[in-house]
């Protein structure tokens, strides 16, 4: 697409309303009741001049530019704040209006720099456009009077500047911060002529303020007042490509705006079905890693991991790899080989990696990074509902009355969804937060949780069973729903179980440390407050009872009748962009695409016929089992696409031992990550900007990823996998990623109706998309559960084996922060590090005082698995006895400390509960020093001859 700004209808669309017909400039238009005259005019192509109006925020009526005349009505009302009425006759262009608008425009321009030719917004400026629209030719007041032209620029934010000299005080930025983002960081300071936009106090800069750099203000600004630094540096974009973000599982759609092959900016696409025109600091701004100097674009190999790397051609790298894999297979058998698909890569790429492992390597030893995040979601929701996925679309939250968040931190992990949720809460929805930490959703501007249950880490099942106890024993269950939709006998078994007095909030209070009265209140609210929706994250899944907690969540939703319509449901907030898709694509060792078990002969026969090879009917190894088997000598080779298991997986010492024991580790990635220290082959990867394919977000929406620029390494990732497959003798002949999706659709019933052509024509579709649901499935289980009757499963609380004691008296829980993403490989290579340069250990003031610690002190964090050092942050955000850190920085490697305890059903690691001790330290640990030295050695690249 060539460069055109996104259409702006002036005021937001009205979702529902009786049709109203009116006449604007002699043309009839019919719009829903409640629509503004401005929007109605825009719908038929009439552009009423405007400055303070934009369709992402509510009408404000301050600029007096959009005045119109209405038959039978006195004066010249603002069209943005005037709702349509049946039979209304509107004139948008009359001599009177022209004169009024020109007069107002003169005032604006009299206090605006006349530097259009050198302004970064030249030819992309609404003020400039509006001046032209109203025919401004002269400013009678001159420019010598009082003005703001010398106001200093605030360049503190790494991504955009604030130039108050160009500000027209339309408040679009302030309103976007409030209405779209929900942070309320901006305000109008002063009155009258002194009014100016301010990031909080007068002394605050944008960087020092509460601004979260979501970019909503920049997108809303009609002038160059808030403008991307990249636009200033590079110039106005000349083309735009719609694509899907590669950060979290919200799946925001962006316009990548470019000059030639140079990306200028990522602008949230207003028609994006997941993000509805909003963005966060990562997707909006943190794309600079794509051309970072650390990027490796030429393949490298080495005989042993102690050798330096040697840059080679693609041919040599691929033939070296294929020969080594063939030799291992010949000597040790097919089950000695395996692969890991990536939740950061496309569906098509994940599908090909598992196809290579199953059809080429000859084993089912394929796993994916969902192993360490949402594998319990797949297990739990398949067991209870029949589908390994969330039940709703993101729009559903607009109809929620009570929202229960458990083990998720949406403002940091899924910020665009958090903004949509906060908007609903500001409209009056109620909120329950179950989290050991006082996350921002508990209390932030205009948001106050009704209940925050700060449970002891590891007691999720006890909390949910206690809530169920209250609901059942107080007669609050929706038995009509349960009788109709669920297995009644199983419900009765479950109801008897949860009714037992040993599950009462009072009995469990010493375990959960949650006051029984609060828990009872929260349970009553959830059961009786209207549409109840549950949103959860890794604080649910990454426990020894992760799967049990997912089962308990499903039980709670069914018991209260909160399944099968808008506003309700069970909503796993997926960590990475394509966790859902990677799981859908058959990335788990026990199942083929579409969650069908490998032992099912009929399913296997379909794949065997399509792929022309026999498949192993036995399940393969999961990632932790691969590492165990490697240490044990039976697993020898691993192809890892887009994943850094040394940094992301638990018990780093064990991961390192497993990798070091293998004969061939192939890392296919953008950077020499930590895992590559143990690799024999490095295959350069491509960024999401350089490839074509699809991602599937947390709401099951399959969306196009479009190639924005050519791959720096020469190949899209699926092409690299195909090169390897061909070298291993497989006759693959894909020439475009769409052909892979066609194969996926042939083999996967829930994807039967999906193709690139259809996604191009209709936008993202939510699976299942098939004959039964040709337009996709925004809400699941509407008329009945996919498995038939909903299944209640009894979930006994079993404390984790990880116990505190005299040596390790504190509980460590880990998580992520807004500005960084996962292991930080991408975001650490952007200016986002200005907000988070290092991992910090949050510790309660009481625990800090007992240890003589202050914020900023180096501390030693030790567990039974290992120890590291990092700086302390003393805060009462965590409860006494609990400490918290992130895992974004390899220098810290929080996973040196986490253990290999895991979920009973899926082996998802128990990242959220580690018994630790914290003490004063004076610098990096012995392990950190040793690892830094080893890492330097492992990254050596032999000089080219």
């Amino acid at each position, binding site marked *: 697409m060539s460069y055109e700004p996104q259409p702006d209808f002036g005021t937001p669309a009205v979702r529902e309303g009786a049709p109203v017909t009116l006449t604007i400039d002699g043309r009839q238009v019919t719009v829903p009741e409640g629509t503004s005259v401005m929007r109605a005019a825009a719908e038929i192509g009439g552009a009423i001049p405007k400055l303070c109006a934009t369709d992402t925020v509510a009408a404000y009526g301050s600029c007096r530019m959009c005045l119109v005349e209405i038959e039978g009505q006195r004066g010249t009302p603002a069209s943005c704040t005037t709702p349509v009425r049946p039979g209304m006759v509107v004139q948008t262009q009359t001599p009177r209006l022209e004169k009024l608008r020109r007069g107002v425009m003169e005032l604006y321009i009299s206090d605006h720099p006349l530097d259009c030719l050198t302004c970064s917004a030249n030819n992309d400026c609404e003020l400039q456009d509006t001046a032209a629209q109203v025919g401004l030719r002269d400013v009678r007041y001159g420019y010598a009077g009082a003005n703001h032209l010398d106001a200093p620029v605030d360049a503190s934010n790494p991504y955009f500047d604030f130039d108050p000299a160009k500000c027209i005080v339309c408040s679009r930025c302030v309103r976007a911060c409030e209405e779209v983002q929900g942070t309320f960081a901006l305000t109008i300071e002063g009155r009258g002529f002194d009014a100016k936009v301010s990031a909080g106090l007068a002394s605050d800069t944008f960087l020092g303020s509460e601004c979260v750099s979501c970019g909503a203000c920049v997108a809303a600004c009609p002038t160059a007042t808030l403008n991307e630094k990249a636009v200033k540096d590079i110039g106005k974009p000349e083309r735009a490509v719609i694509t899907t973000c590669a950060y979290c599982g919200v799946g925001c759609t962006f316009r990548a705006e470019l000059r030639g092959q140079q990306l200028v900016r990522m602008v949230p696409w207003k028609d994006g079905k997941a993000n509805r025109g909003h963005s966060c600091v990562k997707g909006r701004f943190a794309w600079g890693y794509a051309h970072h100097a650390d990027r490796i674009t030429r393949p490298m190999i080495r005989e042993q991991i102690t050798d330096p790397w040697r840059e080679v051609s693609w041919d040599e790298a691929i033939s070296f790899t294929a020969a080594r894999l063939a030799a291992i297979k010949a000597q040790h058998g097919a089950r000695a080989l395996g692969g890991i698909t990536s939740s950061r890569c496309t569906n098509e790429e994940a599908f090909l990696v598992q196809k290579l492992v199953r059809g080429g390597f000859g084993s*089912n030893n394929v796993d994916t990074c969902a192993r360490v995040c949402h594998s319990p979601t797949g297990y739990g929701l398949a067991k209870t509902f029949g589908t390994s996925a969330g039940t709703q679309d993101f729009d559903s939250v607009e109809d929620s009355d009570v929202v229960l968040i458990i083990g998720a931190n949406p403002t940091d992990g899924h910020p665009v969804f958090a903004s949509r949720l906060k908007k609903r809460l500001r409209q009056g929805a109620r909120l329950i937060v179950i989290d050991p930490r006082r996350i921002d959703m508990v209390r932030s501007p205009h948001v106050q949780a009704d209940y925050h249950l700060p449970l002891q880490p590891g007691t999720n099942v006890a909390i949910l069973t206690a809530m169920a106890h209250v609901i059942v024993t107080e007669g609050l269950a929706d038995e009509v729903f349960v009788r109709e939709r669920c297995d009644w006998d199983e419900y009765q078994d479950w109801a008897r179980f949860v009714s037992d007095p040993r599950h009462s909030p009072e009995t469990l209070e010493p375990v959960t440390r949650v006051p029984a009265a609060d828990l009872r209140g929260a349970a009553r609210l959830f059961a009786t407050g209207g549409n109840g929706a549950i949103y959860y994250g890794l604080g649910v899944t990454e426990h020894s009872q992760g799967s049990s907690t997912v089962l308990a969540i499903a039980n709670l939703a069914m018991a209260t009748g909160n399944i099968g319509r808008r506003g309700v449901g069970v909503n796993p907030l997926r960590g990475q962009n394509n966790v859902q898709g990677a799981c859908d694509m058959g990335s788990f060792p026990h199942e083929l695409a579409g969650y069908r078990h490998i032992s099912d002969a009929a399913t296997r026969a379909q794949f065997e016929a399509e792929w022309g090879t026999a498949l192993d009917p*036995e399940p393969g190894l999961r990632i932790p089992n691969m590492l165990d088997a490697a240490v044990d000598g039976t697993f020898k080779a691993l192809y890892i696409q887009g994943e850094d298991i040394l940094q992301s997986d638990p018990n780093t010492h064990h991961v390192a031992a497993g990798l070091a024991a293998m004969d061939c580790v192939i890392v296919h990635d953008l950077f020499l990550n930590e895992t590559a220290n143990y690799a024999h082959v490095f295959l350069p990867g491509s960024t999401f900007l350089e490839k074509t394919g699809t991602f599937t977000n947390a709401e099951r929406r399959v969306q196009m990823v479009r190639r924005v620029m050519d791959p720096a390494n020469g190949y899209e990732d699926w092409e690299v996998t195909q090169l390897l497959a061909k070298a291993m003798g497989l006759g693959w002949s894909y020439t475009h990623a769409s052909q892979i999706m066609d194969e996926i659709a042939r083999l996967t019933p829930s994807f039967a109706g999906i193709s690139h052509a259809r996604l191009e024509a209709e936008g993202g579709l939510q699976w299942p998309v098939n004959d039964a649901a040709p337009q996709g499935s925004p809400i699941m289980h509407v008329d009945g559960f996919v498995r038939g009757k909903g299944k209640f499963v009894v979930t006994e609380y079993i404390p984790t084996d990880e116990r505190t004691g005299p040596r390790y008296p504190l509980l460590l829980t880990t998580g992520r922060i807004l500005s960084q993403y996962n292991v930080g490989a991408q975001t650490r290579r952007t200016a986002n590090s200005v907000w988070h340069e290092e991992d910090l250990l949050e510790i309660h003031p009481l625990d800090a005082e007992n240890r003589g610690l202050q914020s900023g002190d180096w501390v030693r964090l030790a567990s039974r698995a290992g120890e590291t050092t990092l700086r302390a942050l003393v805060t009462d955000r965590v409860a006494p006895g609990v400490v918290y850190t992130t895992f974004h920085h390899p220098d810290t490697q929080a996973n040196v400390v986490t253990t290999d305890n895991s979920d009973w059903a899926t082996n998802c690691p128990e990242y959220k509960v580690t018994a630790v001790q914290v003490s004063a330290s004076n610098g990096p640990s012995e392990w950190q020093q040793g690892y830094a030295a080893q890492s330097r050695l492992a990254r050596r690249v032999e000089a080219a001859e």
Partner: protein
Amino acid sequence: MSSGVEANLIRMANQIAANLAAQGEAAAVAETAAHITRYWDPRMRAAILAADAAGLSPIARAAIASLPR
């Protein structure tokens, strides 16, 4: 099979059995066996069949005993 890997498999089997125990002993034994068959790689199943059963809980032991050899 190293003792560390064997101990880990025994721990995993006990964990599965403990979490399924609330279903009643007979169902828990059957479900534990089915879970291991469904999700464990053949070498893991062979290893636990060959392992010293002393460390297994009663439900896990009965489930392992019911696995095909």
